[in-house]
């Protein structure tokens, strides 16, 4: 579904929802999700990011996986606001279930309810899952 075109650039603009449901360092999903997210944002798409289930762990502040020989890719999420991402959303219930509060997160995110998450999924053209 085409939402519009940017004049003179022939860029099709879609509403993209990125759903992150995995914890950060045990698999490559989170890191790759961020890379794909950057691609969408850089190409002027309307991007919303949603952290759900164990995905909420990706946003926890002060992560340091250097002893694992891994890059702290999660720092990259802080660049999202500058790239013009529409919204960074976190499932309210999933944060609470894991004993976390918004102050534990590395960036300001919108806390969203179950109903709001359903509405997010229904209002985007494409959903990308990681």
């Amino acid at each position, binding site marked *: 579904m085409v939402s519009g075109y940017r004049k003179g650039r022939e860029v099709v603009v879609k509403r993209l929802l990125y759903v992150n*449901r995995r914890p950060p360092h045990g698999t490559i999903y989170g890191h790759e999700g961020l890379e794909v997210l950057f691609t969408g944002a850089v190409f002027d798409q309307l991007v919303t990011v949603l952290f759900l289930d164990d995905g909420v762990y990706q946003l926890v502040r002060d992560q340091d996986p250097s002893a694992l020989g891994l890059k702290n890719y999660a720092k990259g999420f802080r660049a999202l606001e500058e790239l013009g991402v529409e919204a960074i959303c976190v499932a309210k219930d999933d944060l609470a279930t894991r004993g976390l509060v918004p102050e534990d997160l590395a960036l300001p995110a919108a806390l969203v309810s179950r109903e709001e998450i*359903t509405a997010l999924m229904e209002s985007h053209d494409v959903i990308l899952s990681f």
Partner: protein
Amino acid sequence: MVTLHTVNKTPFERGSLASCLKYAACGAVVLLIEDGVYAAVTGSEGAKLLATRAHEIRICVLGPDLEARGIGAARLMAGLEIVDYEQFVVLATQCERVQSWL
């Protein structure tokens, strides 16, 4: 408009099915594929989860994945639709978007 949700893990391996059923809108289509098809076995934990939303969402199961795992029609919970690969493609094109609960 309608979203197609695919689930490809057993309800014991991951919480994908529970999350899917938590967030799927009324009228959505949920398609069980790969190891996700085990949820359709009657009397199982997965079937109990599916039953909570069966009145308001359309639940489909991929037939070849059932056959591959030796799950006959007699062992499936009531109210499911068994689809083949062609019908999977039709569902994916008819629905406005696809959410993969990996």
